[in-house]
């Protein structure tokens, strides 16, 4: 039994025509810090695509690494949704396929330093019938309008990267 992981980087993200986070590259003192800046006032989403190589069973875990652009307190809410298609088996039109119901996590800024890096995890239990070797689209959004839970963190939240993991058995 092993855990399969997929690293999801901001540079790989795709977007719809509206309501997407801005790709940012902040030049730090010693290295560049790239990410996706999710707005505080309106929901924004980014998408990644991967193959569910060696998927076995069970829920997926999406670990999100983020930092606050300007805040040092309060809560951010991250959401995740899947769309899975089994090639040669599923017959739906890929361009009109829907997403499964979202799962979410609320994470609290730990204070002390505004731009410290935080991590949190979403247990994705709405799996859209994922099977091994499916092609999968993953939507990661910020719930800025607090639909799923209260997101009261002021200013942008920058997603540094995300890691999706699951069991191969």
């Amino acid at each position, binding site marked *: 039994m092993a855990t399969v992981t997929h690293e999801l980087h901001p540079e790989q993200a795709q977007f719809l025509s509206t309501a997407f986070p801005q790709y940012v590259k902040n030049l730090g003192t010693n290295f560049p810090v790239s990410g996706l800046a999710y*707005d505080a*006032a309106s929901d924004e989403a980014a998408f990644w695509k991967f193959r569910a190589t060696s998927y076995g069973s069970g829920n997926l875990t999406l670990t999100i690494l983020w930092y606050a652009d*300007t805040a*040092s*307190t309060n809560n951010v809410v991250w959401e995740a949704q899947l769309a899975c298609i089994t090639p040669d088996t599923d017959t739906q039109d890929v361009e009109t396929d829907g997403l499964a119901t979202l799962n979410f996590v609320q994470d609290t800024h730990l204070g002390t330093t505004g731009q410290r890096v935080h991590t949190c995890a979403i247990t994705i239990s709405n799996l859209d019938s994922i099977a091994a070797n499916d092609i999968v689209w993953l939507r990661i959004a910020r719930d800025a309008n607090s639909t799923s839970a209260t997101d*009261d963190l*002021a200013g*942008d939240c920058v997603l540094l990267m995300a890691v999706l993991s699951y069991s191969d058995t």
Partner: protein
Amino acid sequence: MAVLSDADRQQIWADFMASAGPLLESLFGMSKVDIRAAVNAADQWIDDNASSFNAAIPQPARGAMTAKQKARLLVWVVERRWRIQ
């Protein structure tokens, strides 16, 4: 003039947060609710004190300038006083 619409206040709230950042001031310690309350209060204060500001402008400027010109004058003075450009 009445206070701004909810949509206008919402846009100011969003723009204010979007414009903040490391190069400007942080929003440390405030929630989105706190900032929205500040937007509402600032708009309400302007509405409540518009007549007072108008009365403070001496003649003949008070009578000669349009409301928009007076508003623009106030923006210029506020920007200069707090160096917020």
